[in-house]
């Protein structure tokens, strides 16, 4: 058996062990940062090299295919970016920095494995591996006198996480009970025969609810703003982007087991999408802390991602994949700037960004570009991603949802533009200059180039995503069974 398809996982396992060994000594924070950065870059290279690989492990429970490899590439990109721009960990005590990197690598390992799992138990183990590692990152932040934000954030993150895990497990048990299997490829045909049963629907809704926590979508979104605000800036950069990519992968895996004609499930997802978009955007309007603002805006973005999922069709799933990939890059670019503007690792208020253009032109440009990208303005990935999601949703007949999404885009523009206004038009008023080291600047430029390229030449990735989300032949695939319900 060849190990080459699994090289990313192997790198991360060995890397975690190496960083664990480093963490046994004292005063090795910088060494751990360098080793982790090396591991992250090698991992990214390995993922890109094995993007077309395929293979199976553990009695077909673990599969490497185009779908999983595309996700792995972007998870690896997320890890590499966070480690490169967030290696200073200003707000983590020096003696626990190696442990921080250890948990970060473990969390990434869990997510990397998660996207390859095609069996429920394996999937659950990978999900918990990533979740618990990330739960631990939040309270590692330094305590401030009279301010225990990070503890509140950690408590909320863990509590909501555990409850949603309960939903997920409950739903999985129903799935197993109904179909007699824990393998997706056997669940799908068995579930198709009893799609109309209330139990089947309950199973899917419970599973989806459990996963919506990871995506921070309405109504499982409550943790997001608090956790974003309470965690250190680097931690937020990671949990705001990378676990969501994993969540989309698993959601697609589950939804591929259903038929596009499952209108009840579509309805549930539609309500979730509308709730996420409206709540996220409206709440973001009034925020003063940029991390909280991005927390709420990420809820809205989760709603946009759901636009593709409500279609319950491969084409829609592909668009959701594309959008979450673009979102990962924009979100990382935004947090890169936040991490640099924050001098001691403290939270950054919107007012702290005033006149950043004069203090650090590149940082201002990166943040402005990511804001325009999130707002969905061409030529960035946010525009074409939203456009593709809207077109797939409309093709499947969700006219109302599409109009709500379009209106929400307009609401979102207001608060994104407000950030740009502060960056370029407000006076710095003696705020200190923010200096970007060449490495950080390079990382930021690469991220914005990715966002722009995804917006201008989305064709290749889109085709790959479409190929990757094709249903397996075993499942009953009826192309075009859902006809557009447009005003004719």
């Amino acid at each position, binding site marked *: 058996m060849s190990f080459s398809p699994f090289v990313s996982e192997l790198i991360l396992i060995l890397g975690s062990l190496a960083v664990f060994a480093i963490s046994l000594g004292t005063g090795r924070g910088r060494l751990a940062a360098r080793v982790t950065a090396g591991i992250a870059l090698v991992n990214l290279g390995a993922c890109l090299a094995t993007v077309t690989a395929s293979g199976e492990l553990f009695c077909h429970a673990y599969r490497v295919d185009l779908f999983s490899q595309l996700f792995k590439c972007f998870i690896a990109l997320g890890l590499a970016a966070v480690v490169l721009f967030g290696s200073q960990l200003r707000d983590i005590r020096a003696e626990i920095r190696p442990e921080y990197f250890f948990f970060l690598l473990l969390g990434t390992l869990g997510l990397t494995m998660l996207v390859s799992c095609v069996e429920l138990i394996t999937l659950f183990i990978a999900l918990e591996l990533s979740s618990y590692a990330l739960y631990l990152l939040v309270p590692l932040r330094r305590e401030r006198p009279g301010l225990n934000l990070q503890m509140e954030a950690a408590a909320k993150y863990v509590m909501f996480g555990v409850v949603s895990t309960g939903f997920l497990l409950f739903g999985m048990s129903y799935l197993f009970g109904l179909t007699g299997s824990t393998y997706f490829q056997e669940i799908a045909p068995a579930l198709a025969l009893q799609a109309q049963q209330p139990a089947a629907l309950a199973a899917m809704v419970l599973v989806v609810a459990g996963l919506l926590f990871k995506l921070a979508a309405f109504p499982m979104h409550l943790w997001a703003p608090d956790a974003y605000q309470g965690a250190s800036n680097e931690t937020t950069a990671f949990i705001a982007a990378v676990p969501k990519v994993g969540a989309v992968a698993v959601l697609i895996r589950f939804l591929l087991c259903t038929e596009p004609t499952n209108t009840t499930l579509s309805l549930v997802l539609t309500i979730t999408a509308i709730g996420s978009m409206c709540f996220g955007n409206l709440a973001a309007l009034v925020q003063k802390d940029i991390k909280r603002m991005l927390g709420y805006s990420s809820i809205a973005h989760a709603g946009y991602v759901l636009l593709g999922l409500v279609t319950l069709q491969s084409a829609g799933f592909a668009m959701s994949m594309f959008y979450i990939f673009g979102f990962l890059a924009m979100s990382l670019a935004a947090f890169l700037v936040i991490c640099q503007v924050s001098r001691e690792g403290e939270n950054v208020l919107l007012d702290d960004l005033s006149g950043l253009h004069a203090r650090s032109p590149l940082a201002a440009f990166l943040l402005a570009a990511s804001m325009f990208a999130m707002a969905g*303005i*061409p*030529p960035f990935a946010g525009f074409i991603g939203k*456009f593709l999601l809207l077109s797939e949703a409309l093709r499947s007949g969700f006219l109302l949802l599409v*109009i709500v999404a379009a209106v929400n885009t307009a609401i979102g523009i207001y608060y994104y*533009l407000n950030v740009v206004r502060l960056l*370029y038009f407000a006076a710095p008023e003696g705020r200190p200059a923010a200096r970007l080291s060449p490495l950080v600047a390079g990382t930021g430029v690469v991220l914005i180039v990715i966002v722009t390229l995804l917006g201008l030449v989305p064709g290749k990735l889109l085709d790959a995503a479409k190929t990757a989300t094709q249903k397996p032949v075993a499942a009953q695939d009826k192309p075009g069974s859902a006809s557009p319900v447009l005003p004719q």
Partner: protein
Amino acid sequence: MVACISGDWPILSVLLFLPLAGILAFPLLRSDGAAKLWALGVTIITAVASLALYTGFNPATADYQFGEHIAWIPSLNINYALGVDGISLMLILMTTLLSPLCILCSWRAITVRVKEFLVCLLVMESAMLGVFMALDFILFYIFWEAMLIPMFLLIGVWGGPRKIYASVKFFLYTLAGSVLLPVAMIALYLASPTHTFSIPELMGQPYSASLQCWVFLAFFVAFAIKVPMFPFHTWLPAAHVEAPTAGSVVLASVLLKMGTYGFLRFCLPMTPIGVQTFAPYVLALSIAGIIYGGLCALAQSDMKRLVAYSSVAHMGFVTLGIFVVNTAGIEGGLLQMINHGITTGALFLCVGMIYERTHSREIAKATGIGKVMPIYVTALTIFGLSSLAFPGTNSFVGEFLVLVGSFQSATLWGLLAIPGVILSAAYMLRMLQRIIWGGTHNPDTSYLKDLNARECVTLGLLVVMVLWIGFAPQPFLEVFHVSVQNLLAQYQAGLPM
């Protein structure tokens, strides 16, 4: 179906990317002066190159010429498709010819962040050209929206005292207007038999009446805000007054035309039933805009606001001409789009020149300058007369054709538009009288210097255009005559018998 004729070499792409490519040299340019010269050179080369479009254009056919077609996102049938017909040709030429003037007029006025300013102007030029050249809906929308970012910065960074309010209002207003545009685009894409975003292929398809009405409304909101039509005009005076002169010129001359271009390119051929259903309301709004804009202009003491409100009135004439949907109306509307670009652009340049000297845009601060600035007031008078559609100037031809079209359609619309003509004479002559002669209490203006060579060249070119179109409009009308006929044929064919 209208064919798309390809040229020997991709002249449209060259024109489109020349200004963008010019930006690449900016890091090499050390001084601001060199950057200005370079940007001026780039825009002049673009302008000269665009004349090749005019000479190579065949006005005897309604086909899209100089066509380019490259697959872009094949899975959704989205293409990089460019092409030019009679309707877009004149607008493209106007954009390329006005761009060097925008840089010339900023030569002294812009003193901070000069390179960034020039980058914004060059990006604007590329995006504006892209809007008029695109033959694919997605490509069109990308240019349409991408243009907002440099314009937002032009107003917000280099604008007047209330620049931030104006830039944010401009951005939010125009962007909020176009959020439903992609939805309409996707609806047409799904309803078209070939599932395409190609603009020529989406025309003349038998869409259902209700779909056409909804799509028309989505289009209308987006385009009417851009025009801007009454009552969506409130962003315009704010943006114009606060924008730097070059920004005002670009805004008035080119950006406003995109709304009316959208009506011609999309609404008439794609949703004829929608146009027919809503035309009376649009015409009523046009008339309201003409009267309201004129009355507001009459009440202004700020030159820039006066010209801004006159824009609302003039654009009302354009939409009036378009929505009476007959040859005279549309040709008049199209010519009036060009005229407004030249005349209003020139008036904003004139206001900018006074502002550079007196640091005020108040008419009262610059009364009676006829003696000290004879060349300036001569140019101002020509543009002022052009703005009120004096015979022998360009606007006379345009407005006359629009009125002919309105009377052909219904006497009522023509009669209602007449007061607008009188109003425009009133506010323009009032401004000219005060600027040139003033009253008995003129401020001391003896320190003012008349126009220098750079300013004379800037305005001189526009004076030539005003008189050329005024006395010999035929070559200009010929360029779009066949395209307009074809547009009307498509419109008629789309209506139920």
